């Protein structure tokens, strides 16, 4: 067949398959060869003005190189650069739509192609053939490929400069760390350790302290659970979105079960027939049929479900959630404890832990029908003007009583805080609880009877107002703090209660504790390299609270897993009580500068250096080498795979959403000014661009000089003042253009956290189309747009 005819036939068949519900065809990427079929001939339409650029041809192939791998690491990539959307965003055409939206003629290996600048070509071809004209304002118009398009990729990239100019490469040790994040003790006393960095599970002989077996699982195993008979081990793989099933007798992985995003805590029911898996990246709970080894049901959790424990008496699971549920603007937060009915596999009840966040570890107290959980009480509504008297954050324990009542107490002492409590374990006799203090490298020993007595003896007022806020109370029930290794994240008792084990994530050891002596009796080495690389050092600094006065908080306290705690803070520098700023994720931020919502920090060194010390930690700033190590680590904080992207590419709804994102005309066919198009500002591979933009999001508390806030009433906060600022033509602030990678996991939104969901960006805060033209969109179009944004 004539090649041209073959191409045409192929196109027509693809177009037929691309007809969408709008009655329109959605564009497909056809590939360079098809474009050149017309534009590359002397008789054809004008060809590209640019000369062929060999580097564009190689753009994809260079991703398969060691240097590209190092660059990807510095952008938080977790897989091959050839699969990484951020890398592909510049190194290949059609990367974000996926293979579903490319013709067989399209080859991603072609690198940067015609359609990289001019967008999908199929409709262009179709229009040309049908009308022999190019409707300048057609929604399907081929993009012109203006010079600005080049800048989307051809801008300085720190990640590239570090590798290509300064020769950055990970140290050999960076590939060999274990990073134990979870320790289990089986009924025979054997130790099972999930190691995050080595993507493996270690089996440790408790007698000799030696690693007897290591089994590779999925990416970033974070938690594990045994079947009731102890024969099967389930391991959640946070970056694989799966659960590895290990047959312990065979000592091998026998199955991988797909679950939701970033699975963490998991547990079987009492019969071992169901496995409950907490998808911390997707706010859901997968219910897995263990026999069929597949997910059968998905439950809605709170925000960031983390760990769960079974209450034997009620046959309920209690689930912790890391981040608070959405509340009103500048309103106190609450974090959910989800209660699951084991038999029916439903969320039966949602308990509120008032003013708490970072609710993580959870353990039942045998014989008492009481459950303990770890928590932080972050003071995000109070200006961060002091780091004393628990002014910035406090750390404690929650107690859940059988009727669902929740009490909270602090584990801190005045000016000696117990930063980042991450896990809790209770001795089999129910006498003591051990709490891992990840930020202070200590284990707090809690006398449970004294703890419960303290609560029981308090008045209702004191239980509500004093105990959760009093730094002196811990002296009544914290009987000791035991120093352990670096960054303890998990603690577990042996079945006989004679030993407890602590997983020290950042020195690759377990601390063995004698509960009778309340002392560490042995450090068990898990086999990681002894040396400390720069990235590892930075990781330790990130997780260590000694950076702040009294060890009140670490970087991790507000950026768990390098992400966010879901809160907006009141920082002193821009006025007390005013200018709240939403916490921003650190995942993959290397190339997204400048930093800060005001966009005033050009580098992470500046962001994390002097300013951080003066306005946050109040201690001496990092030394230069410490700061470099910290920044290096931050640059490697991983971007989890997006759960809303299918391997085949965008769904139909998502594809429509992408077209809305990139549209240049509105629903009435009128042109949209360039500065009101989504893609103008959210342009590059991160869906961002350097600089600031005024998007009409100025609210109450943003510009006190412009309005009389003395008449500002609490109940008016619902209006947040956006309309007032805009309609009165008051001075509006510009803010850093946020990158949209991982936006689905980053709520709340806007500079001050005023938007609790993406929808609110347009339904509450964009009355005047200042944040892109969206007021003409239908409900369905909004849904499509959001569906697309969630894939970024």
């Amino acid at each position, binding site marked *: 067949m004539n090649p041209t005819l073959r191409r045409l036939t192929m196109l027509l068949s693809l177009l037929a398959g691309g007809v969408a519900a709008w009655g329109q065809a959605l564009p497909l990427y056809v590939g360079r060869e098809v474009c050149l079929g017309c534009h590359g001939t002397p008789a054809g339409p004008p060809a590209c003005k640019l000369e062929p650029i060999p580097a564009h041809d190689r753009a994809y192939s260079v991703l398969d190189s060691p240097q590209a791998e190092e660059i990807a690491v510095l952008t938080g990539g977790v897989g091959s650069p050839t699969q990484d959307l951020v890398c592909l965003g510049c190194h290949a055409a059609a990367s974000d739509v996926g293979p579903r939206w490319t013709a067989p003629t399209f080859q991603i290996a072609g690198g940067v192609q015609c359609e990289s600048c001019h967008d999908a070509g199929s409709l262009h071809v179709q229009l040309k053939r049908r009308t022999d004209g190019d409707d300048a304002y057609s929604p399907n118009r081929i993009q012109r490929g203006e010079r600005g398009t080049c800048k989307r990729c051809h801008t300085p990239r720190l990640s590239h400069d570090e590798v290509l100019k300064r020769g950055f490469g990970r140290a050999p040790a960076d590939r060999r760390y274990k990073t134990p994040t979870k320790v289990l003790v089986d009924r025979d006393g054997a130790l099972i350790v999930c190691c995050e960095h080595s993507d493996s599970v270690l089996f440790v002989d408790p007698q000799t302290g030696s690693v007897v077996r290591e089994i590779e699982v999925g990416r970033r195993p974070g938690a594990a659970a045994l079947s009731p008979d102890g024969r099967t081990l389930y391991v959640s793989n946070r970056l694989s979105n799966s659960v590895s099933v290990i047959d312990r007798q065979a000592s091998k992985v026998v199955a991988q079960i797909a679950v939701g995003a970033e699975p963490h805590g998991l547990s079987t029911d009492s019969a071992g027939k169901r496995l409950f898996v907490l998808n911390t990246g997707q706010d859901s709970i997968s219910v897995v049929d263990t026999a069929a080894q597949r997910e059968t049901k998905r439950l809605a959790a709170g925000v960031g479900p983390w760990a769960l424990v079974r209450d034997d008496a009620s046959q309920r699971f209690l689930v912790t959630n890391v981040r608070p549920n959405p509340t009103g603007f*500048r309103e*106190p*937060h609450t974090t959910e404890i989800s209660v699951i009915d084991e038999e029916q596999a439903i969320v039966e009840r949602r308990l509120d832990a008032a*003013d708490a966040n970072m609710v993580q570890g959870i353990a039942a107290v045998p014989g008492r029908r009481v459950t303990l959980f770890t928590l932080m*009480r*972050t*003071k*995000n*509504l*109070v*200006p961060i*003007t*002091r780091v*004393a*008297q*628990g*002014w910035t954050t*406090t750390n404690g324990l929650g107690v859940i009583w059988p009727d669902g009542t929740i009490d909270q107490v602090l584990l801190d*002492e*005045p*000016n*000696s805080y117990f930063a980042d409590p991450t896990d809790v374990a209770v001795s089999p006799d129910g006498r003591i609880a051990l709490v891992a203090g990840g930020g202070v490298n200590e284990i707090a020993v809690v006398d449970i009877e004294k703890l419960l007595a303290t609560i029981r003896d308090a008045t209702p007022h004191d239980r509500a*107002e004093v105990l959760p*806020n*009093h*730094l*002196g109370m811990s002296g009544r029930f914290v009987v000791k703090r035991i*120093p352990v290794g*670096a960054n303890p994240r998990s603690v577990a008792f042996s079945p006989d209660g004679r030993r407890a084990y602590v997983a020290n994530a950042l020195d690759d050891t377990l601390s063995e504790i004698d509960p009778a002596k309340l002392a560490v009796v042995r450090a068990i080495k898990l086999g990681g390299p002894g040396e400390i690389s720069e990235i590892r*050092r930075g990781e*330790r*600094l990130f997780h*260590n609270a*000694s*950076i702040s*006065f*009294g060890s009140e908080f670490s970087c991790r306290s507000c950026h768990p897993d390098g992400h966010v705690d879901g809160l907006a803070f*009141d920082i*002193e520098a821009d006025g*007390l*009580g*005013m200018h709240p700023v939403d916490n921003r994720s650190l995942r993959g931020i290397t190339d997204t500068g400048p930093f800060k919502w005001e966009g005033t920090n050009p580098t992470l060194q500046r962001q994390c250096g*002097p*300013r951080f*010390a*003066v*306005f946050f*930690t109040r*201690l*001496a*700033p990092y*030394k230069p080498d*410490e700061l470099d*190590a910290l920044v290096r680590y931050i640059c490697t904080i991983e971007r989890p795979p997006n759960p809303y992207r299918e391997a085949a590419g965008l769904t139909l709804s998502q594809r429509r959403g992408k077209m809305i994102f990139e549209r240049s005309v509105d629903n009435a066919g009128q042109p949209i000014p360039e500065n009101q198009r989504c893609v103008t500002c959210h342009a590059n591979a991160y869906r961002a661009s350097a600089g600031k933009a005024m998007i009409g999001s100025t609210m*109450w*508390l943003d510009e*006190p000089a412009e309005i009389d*806030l*003395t008449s500002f009433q*609490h109940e008016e906060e619902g209006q947040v003042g956006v309309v007032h600022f805009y309609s009165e033509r008051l001075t509006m602030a510009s803010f850093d253009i946020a990158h949209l990678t991982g936006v689905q996991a980053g709520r709340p939104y806007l500079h001050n956290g005023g938007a609790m969901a993406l929808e609110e960006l347009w339904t509450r805060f964009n009355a005047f189309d200042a944040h892109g033209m969206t007021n003409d969109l239908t409900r369905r179009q909004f849904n499509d747009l959001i569906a697309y944004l969630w894939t970024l």
Partner: protein
Amino acid sequence: MRRTLIPRRWAAPEVNDESSAATDQGIQRIMSPALKIAFCSLAVLALAAFSACVSGLRGAAQPAKTPQACGTPPGLILAQTPRGGAGAGDDVRPGGRIAWSRSSGQRADLEVLTRDFFAAGRPQLSFDATRVLFLGRPTAADATNVWEMDLGSRQTRQITHAAADCTAAIYLSTLYTITADAPTPQICYCTKEPDDVSALYTCLPDGGGVRRITFGPNPASDPCLLSDGRLLFTSHTASPAAGLDASPQNTNAIGARLFTVNTDGTDVSLFAEGDASAVPGDACETADGRVFFVERKPPASPSGRQASTLVAVARTRSLRTRQVIREFAGPLGRLAAQADGTLWLSTAATYESPGGITLFDPASDRCTMLYESEEWSISAAGPVEARPAPAGRSSRVDDKADYGFLYCLDSYLSDRPEASRIERGQIKRIRVFTSAPAAQREKMLSEFDVETDGSFFLQVPARTPLRLQTIGDAGAVLQNMQSWLWIMPREARGCIGCHEDRELTPPNRHVIALRKPPHLIPGADAQTGPGKWPTITTPIPVERGEEQ
């Protein structure tokens, strides 16, 4: 003829008269070589463990330069004053001197380091044990200023040039501000300006960058750097009986308490209080986090003796853990902490007993005499050994500004008995007072409405003593703040309540006052002009309050 430098009864031939060095067999006799070796080894081990613990994960800690590393032998530094009364505020008497005993060999020798000074005293070793900070007067006509000596070269240099006598000086850790290139080490000293009370100042090691950091109307003295980087000091509360003269020399000035303040002058807070009839001071912190200090009671009669009580509190819960460790019939000099938790107590020579240095172990309540002298009082002594530098601090203070902020989340929160009678809604207004130097007069600066949730937010003059009143209907005074605080330039000081429980953390609420601009509180001069200090019509009872 030069006075002999060593106790007469242990006098031995001077080994180097030109250098004023002398052998002091007394030290050797009390501390046998074996005991000294064991003692030093234990101290070094404990110090190493503590250092490793403190350095934590802030990267590989740089080992402190020890005297051995610098070629200088270990030993002890002590301040001697002629017999007749050493004690607080009496460190730099004529003839007072600083000596160094390198008691590591078979023959202990005592080298006077300040032979060129008319008077010297109150030595403090640098963190790396290579330098000594001390108070010195080169001649009788000179004021007492802060000096530093390099222990290796014996070279001295003058750091401060204050007109009035300095009464204390200590090394601080580093301070960093947003405009600085790097954190800089600081020195804290105590002196006073004309017509003002004694206050704490900081400066750079070269004497530049002087900044006053305490501004209460009451005198401040006896600074001590805590391991967490805060500065502990004594605030001498004036009393009517003392004629409002709260100077340390006024033995009737009762009610002194210990406060902490950050090294940039921010966040002044009550640290400890105890015996109302005693003056606490001379604090030091041991490695286990306990802060020891001496409470001195004035003599019952002019001919009587000053009694001393050794008290300890936990640094983290200082208001709740006061423990009387031991009573002493006579005056105690300065304390020095060993890394192993033992204390060096310095005592004055009196008619009844010789002066000396006692090693006190709080755990066993045992005292071991290290050195005694019938001729000299020992006002201070400490081992020549490196110690970990406390954490440096970062500061928001902007010296160019003349204002700061003070906000309160809920003025109904209080642990004072009278507050329990105040119902929500009763507090209508807040009054702000300031004080003239020396606390003899005060006046109202402003009065303003409090928010319905009890919050308020003020922009106040910086470096100014402030005191507040809560006012109800018809101007009734509901609560008096019976002490003073100050705000440093650009400091934003938050209060949870009005004299709330100091261990209570703030509730996480966006209070009404912080949704509005602050009330502007004018400075004293803006109201009545300099020198006009009308006595307020409602006398404010001066009692033991919360802040200085």
